[in-house]
């Protein structure tokens, strides 16, 4: 076979991207198309399937728990994102310079990230336990509370301690992302700003933040997507309780698909959630775009 140089080049390129295309097709595009297909059906785990058109989507507006879960998920995202981001930024600033033993601190801050979220959630369940948990032990020993607290037993405290556990678990990841962005800023810029008499906040406002726009966008998008898709921590720490006050949207999709076996309905909810996530990410990219 005689191929010209440019033809060979194209063929090589095609061959090189094929594994990725195959991977994305098998593990993303086909499941996505199947989910869309399922969402138009009444699809029980066992028994007959039936085409129902848009019925599953119409059902969504009447599903009180679905709306409640959407509301809860966005409230949770709004509450958990700022602490992860701000704390991540502070930690990144603290471990930015390559001084002696700084690696130890970077490792300590990053350590919770390597634990699975399921495991860390279980760890927190035990630490928060009213009989044997370390938190109650400390609070009681210092006479800060009159009796053991049921942190996961009340809607407000449950939400707060879950946020605390997630910040502890994920802040190291945001720190590493922001650290890479911080270290990419040339020191000369700061030096010349200092010569011009700029203080810490001016440098932060006019050098650090503008030059970290892309990194901030990436960190924010990953954090927001992670929060909107959160499931493990609620499933393990509260099982959606107390009084169903901590059922995230993915939790509700899971319940419908694998507890009530309404797979078609679960698929419809997943498609709507996908659309919401695409819109959210688009919005964030637009707001944080590089201005010409």
């Amino acid at each position, binding site marked *: 076979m005689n191929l010209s140089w440019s033809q060979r080049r194209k063929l090589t390129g095609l061959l090189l991207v094929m594994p990725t295309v195959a991977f994305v097709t098998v593990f993303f595009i086909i499941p996505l198309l199947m989910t869309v297909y399922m969402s138009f059906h009444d699809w029980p785990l066992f028994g007959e399937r039936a085409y129902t058109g848009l019925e599953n989507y119409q059902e969504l507006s009447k599903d009180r728990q679905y709306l409640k879960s959407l509301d809860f998920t966005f409230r949770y995202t709004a509450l958990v994102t700022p602490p992860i981001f701000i704390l991540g930024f502070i930690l990144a600033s603290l471990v930015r310079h390559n001084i002696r033993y700084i690696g130890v601190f970077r490792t300590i801050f990053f350590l919770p990230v390597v634990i699975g979220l399921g495991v860390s959630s279980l760890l927190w369940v035990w630490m928060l336990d009213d009989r044997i948990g370390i938190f109650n032990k400390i609070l009681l020993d210092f006479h800060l509370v009159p009796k*053991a607290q049921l942190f996961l037993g009340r809607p407000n405290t449950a939400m707060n301690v879950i946020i605390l556990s997630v910040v502890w678990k994920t802040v190291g990841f945001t720190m590493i992302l922001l650290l890479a962005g911080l270290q990419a800023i040339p020191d000369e810029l700061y030096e010349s700003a200092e010569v011009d008499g700029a203080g810490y906040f001016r440098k932060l406002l006019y050098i650090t933040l503008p030059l970290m726009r892309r990194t901030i966008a990436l960190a924010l998008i990953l954090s927001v997507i992670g929060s909107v898709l959160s499931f493990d921590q609620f499933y393990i720490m509260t099982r959606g309780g107390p009084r169903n006050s901590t059922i995230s949207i993915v939790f509700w999709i899971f319940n419908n698909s694998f507890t009530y*076996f309404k797979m078609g309905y679960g698929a419809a909810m997943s498609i709507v959630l996908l659309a919401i996530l695409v819109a959210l990410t688009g919005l964030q990219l637009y707001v944080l775009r590089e201005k010409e």
Partner: protein
Amino acid sequence: MTSRKLILLVFAIVLVLGSLPASAQDDQINMTMWVRSIPFQTQALVDEWNANNDSQIELTVIPSAEFVTKMGAAIAAGEPPDIASIDLIYTPAFAAAGQLVDITDFVKELPYADTLTPAHMALGMYEGRNYAVPTGVDGSFIVYNIDLFEQAGLDPDNPPTTWGEMLDAMRAIDALGDEVYGYWFSMNCAGCNAFTFLPFIWASGGDVLSDDYAEATIDSDPIVRDALAFYNTIWEEGLVPEGASIDNGSNFVSAFTGGNIGMAGMGNFAIPLFTNDHPDLNFDVFHIPGKEGGAASFGGGDVIAIASGSQHVEEAWRFIEWTMSDEAQIEIYAANGQIPVRLELVDNPYFEGDERQMTAASALAVGFTPYTTVYNDLFNDPNGPWLEMLQVAILDGDIDGALELGQERFTQIMEG
């Protein structure tokens, strides 16, 4: 012939000969069986069967919470196990979906069919046909600490027979000390409370579902309100540890073993556990009473069925029938402290003199189980209406709100 060829020839002969017994074994029946992870005697049954029969059973234990999903997925993939030991409440849903083999003709031949636990037999029926028989029976009752009863000046030989007497006993025990409580319930565990709280309603002549299971009767049956108020009083007066309000069932059994709990709803699976692991625990059991007397029990446990698509229906039934034989029921069930599924065998040498086992077994005679294909959505789901209704009524004290919420969400689920 070179030595290399010779080695190859010998190797080929060994391979052919080695495969011969395997082809002879093709006639042997190999069956698969799935069971959920609860401490019944299934492993002992399968071991005994495999040791004495040509056909062999491979047992797979599946976490209880995942059983239905895994079974459904296996059915959908066309690879169900031959035999399945299923939580009895799911049997109507499986039978309705055509996933179980009709065993009516086999059951008819059983001389002792009438003595099999009634709740399990009822749940194993669908449209007048049998699809499952009992394999692990588990009735609910109240377990009580004899030592605490005595310390509180109560008569352990005459345990409470009404809600009022129960409350009085709880108050007396609770007064023994700061760390002593009258009662225990796992108020963040949906299934535990279907098992131990529903019988309070049934024993008083009430129910949360109509007789034909067509509608919810939560807001129309006054007994439901009374039962919620009864439990609310227990909570309000601090007769249970505060931690009970968030217990998801992990302390359902162990809470009572601490020795500081006067009474708790329990099932007979706990009796061998208590006697073997906590020999110092001085306990007895009584039936779950109604408001003014009477008794009821939740008939829980497992039934055993043959999955549609099994190639070994006859042999699977032979195994199932053997599990109900005198030999298996006495030498495996009773010997391990499990109640036989044939109630006439409760009177056996292993249970002789153990009043607790006799009371627990007699609870099964009054055992009842709701028959509905949406049982899981109504009662067992941790985010379902049953648990939310209980928590709102008992822990928050909003009984009206709970009844309204329960009625509305039950109806919604039952109407599909």
